[in-house]
């Protein structure tokens, strides 16, 4: 959600990001300010997830900056790069990446651990869609009641769809 100033926009963004992640982990999320207008969110170490069958962890890195909208003068967060990964004891199981800065692959893509060396092109992925995929298909157990986590992910994904400048 936009804010009246940079800090309000960032706090709002971090809050909603954390709210979505709270559906599957209660680990502390760490925002970092690298420079005047370069920030990132991450877990360090990767966040343990609840899974009945296997040991699973979640790695998240999202870099972002703040921009001021010309029509409203409100500040909003713009994502610059992301990496969302589900990890097992043998390494990455599935991960969504977008890292156009400094690397050869500039488009959003998917890695599947069992299919090596392929960057499957994707649309831009929200953290909410990634979390929903983990719950629906990778046996990750939500920490919240069904009615609550579904409502949170749906609400925040709609906000992403509304605010994202490209997909």
């Amino acid at each position, binding site marked *: 959600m936009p804010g009246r100033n940079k800090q309000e926009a960032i706090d709002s963004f971090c809050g909603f990001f954390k709210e979505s992640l709270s559906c599957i982990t209660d680990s502390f999320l760490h925002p*970092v300010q690298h420079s005047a207008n370069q920030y990132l969110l991450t877990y*360090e170490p990767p966040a343990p997830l609840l899974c009945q069958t296997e040991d699973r962890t979640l790695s998240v890195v999202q870099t972002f900056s703040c921009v001021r909208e010309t029509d409203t003068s409100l500040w909003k967060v713009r994502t*610059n790069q992301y990496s969302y990964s589900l990890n097992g004891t043998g390494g990455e199981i599935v991960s969504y990446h977008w890292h156009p800065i400094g690397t050869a692959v500039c488009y959003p893509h998917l890695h599947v651990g069992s299919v090596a060396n392929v960057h499957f092109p994707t649309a831009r992925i929200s953290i909410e869609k990634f979390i929903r995929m983990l719950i629906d298909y990778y046996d990750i157990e939500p920490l919240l009641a069904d009615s609550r986590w579904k409502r949170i992910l749906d609400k925040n994904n709609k906000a992403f769809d509304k605010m994202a400048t490209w997909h």
Partner: protein
Amino acid sequence: MAVAAKKTNERVKWIKRDQAMTLVDARAKRVLGISGAEFMAKWNAGEYRNLDSDACPGVIELALLAPPTGRAQRARKKQARSHR
């Protein structure tokens, strides 16, 4: 919405800029077996440009965690202009 966001911010802990390299160092040692400083030197020299998760699991996260250099700063500004 603002109330919900504020409550979940209780489990959001800011890391200061001078602590960020500690984070990079810990991740670099775990993922690549090298120090954060060594990773930064190699990254800035373009050594990991063509690597991705398949060849080097965790290297992309490490690259995103690393503080941006002058070249990366210019690239991000260019990206910001193109995605407005």
